[in-house]
């Protein structure tokens, strides 16, 4: 949270994505996240730059965890602070929507019965 401190910002919007106990293939025990790290960094910087062009944002933090995460654990956290709430809400939504469609990260749902890669969105 200290990374989002800014005395000129009156609004802080935070999005956290957690591992759900139900997935596309049934009950989930944990999710294995894998990333193409170098490209993910490039894409996250690209998204950050777009956000700063679109809205008057003071600070932005986006962290995606990789590896095995259990149900209830946080896989992604996005924080944005801005002068007013509208920009913070909109920017936060933009970041999570674009992380899901543009950043090379994959998840495998692990249950007692199976381990299945989740189908997703083909990068453009």
């Amino acid at each position, binding site marked *: 949270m200290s990374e989002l401190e800014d005395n000129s910002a009156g609004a802080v919007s935070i999005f956290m994505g957690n591992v759900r106990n139900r997935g596309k293939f049934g009950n989930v025990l944990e999710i294995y996240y894998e990333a193409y790290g170098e490209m993910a960094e490039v894409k996250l910087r690209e998204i950050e730059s777009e956000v700063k062009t679109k809205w008057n944002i003071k600070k932005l933090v986006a962290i995606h965890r990789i590896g095995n995460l259990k149900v209830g654990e946080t896989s992604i956290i996005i924080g944005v602070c801005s002068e007013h709430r509208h920009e913070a809400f909109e920017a936060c939504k933009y970041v999570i929507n674009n*992380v899901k469609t543009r950043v090379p990260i*994959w998840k495998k749902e692990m249950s007692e019965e199976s381990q299945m890669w989740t189908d997703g*969105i*083909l990068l453009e």
Partner: protein
Amino acid sequence: MRSDIPVNYNLKVRLFAILRDVVGEREITITVPSGVTVSYLNDEILKKYPQLRSFSNKFVTSVNCKVTNGDTIITSSDEIALLPPVSGG
């Protein structure tokens, strides 16, 4: 030595997620002549790893962290990766 004679070189290709599981390797090596396109490389990959054929329209090829189309020319120093549909978040 004439410079227009094609020279073969080994290209390393990184695999991720389901593609890595299917092949069983994080990185594969494909021998290609110089000046080939992404399409050519993909065809060579599918010849060498036929288990990937059922995924041929389910991955894109990145060159130096950029998604490419088939016409992109590859050089020996490029970093290539095959990327299945993403599902982060």
